[in-house]
């Protein structure tokens, strides 16, 4: 089997990053099509693997593919209409600190535009540094800082309203 190593390489990427791909997809798209989008991301990773050089790390590349798949989906589907209500997914979320806060954050995120949401998710939820976020999104560091500042401000305002209600 001359291509076994390619499959092994792909399997390794899946094992290492499938949870991350799922988390990012979920936080960017709202959850309605997570399974399908995760599959789509890995399909693109499979197709792109032969062309993937060493220009960036595998992690950065996998993040980039995942974000692109999610943004493509958002262009086709408005996220607010497809958010899964908290009650329907409760049994999957034992790790939550406060379920109502999770839901509030998810809904507040959905109000952000894709650029701000992606930056917030990658930096605060995925713990990527500002430089790493810039690498994934292929934008300058200053742009990431600006998006984080504005996005955080919008998120705070939205959360204050929701939690106050």
């Amino acid at each position: 089997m001359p291509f076994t190593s390619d499959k092994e390489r792909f399997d390794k990427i899946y094992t290492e990053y499938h949870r991350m791909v799922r988390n990012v997809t979920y936080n960017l798209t709202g959850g309605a099509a997570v399974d399908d989008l995760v599959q789509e991301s890995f399909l693109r990773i499979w197709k792109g693997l032969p062309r993937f050089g060493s220009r960036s790390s595998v992690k950065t590349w996998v993040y980039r593919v995942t974000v692109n798949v999610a943004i493509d989906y958002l262009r086709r589907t408005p996220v607010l209409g497809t958010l899964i209500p908290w009650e329907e997914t409760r049994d999957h979320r034992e790790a939550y600190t406060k379920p109502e806060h999770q839901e509030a954050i998810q809904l507040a995120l959905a109000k952000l535009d894709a650029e701000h949401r992606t930056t917030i998710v990658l930096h605060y939820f995925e713990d990527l540094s500002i430089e790493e976020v810039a690498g994934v999104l292929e934008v300058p560091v200053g742009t990431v800082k600006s998006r984080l500042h504005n996005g955080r401000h919008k998120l705070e305002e939205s959360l204050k309203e929701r939690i106050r209600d």
Partner: protein
Amino acid sequence: VTDLFKDFLKKNRPLPGEAPKDERQAIWARIAATGETHFPTRPLLWKFIAAAAVVLVVFALSLRTLDLPGEELTNEEVLSESLLLSFLDDDDSDELYSFNSVAN
């Protein structure tokens, strides 16, 4: 306040839960459906083949140059060269003749 908010976000980040158990198989099924279950010839391999072809062509050309005994002449060039030679020969004979005649 900002640090508290960052901490709040990190602690309460929404998580989608576990992936379906058959997710890996589902992905392979999708890959199989595209028909691209093997990687196509890789760009690196193409680059290698192209480089090898260039090296071969250059090598073959250099061999051909080495094999050539000299510049091939056209019929006209051969003719003019032989005429020149005969002329030179004539010159020599003339000179010899004139030398002999003077000597005599």
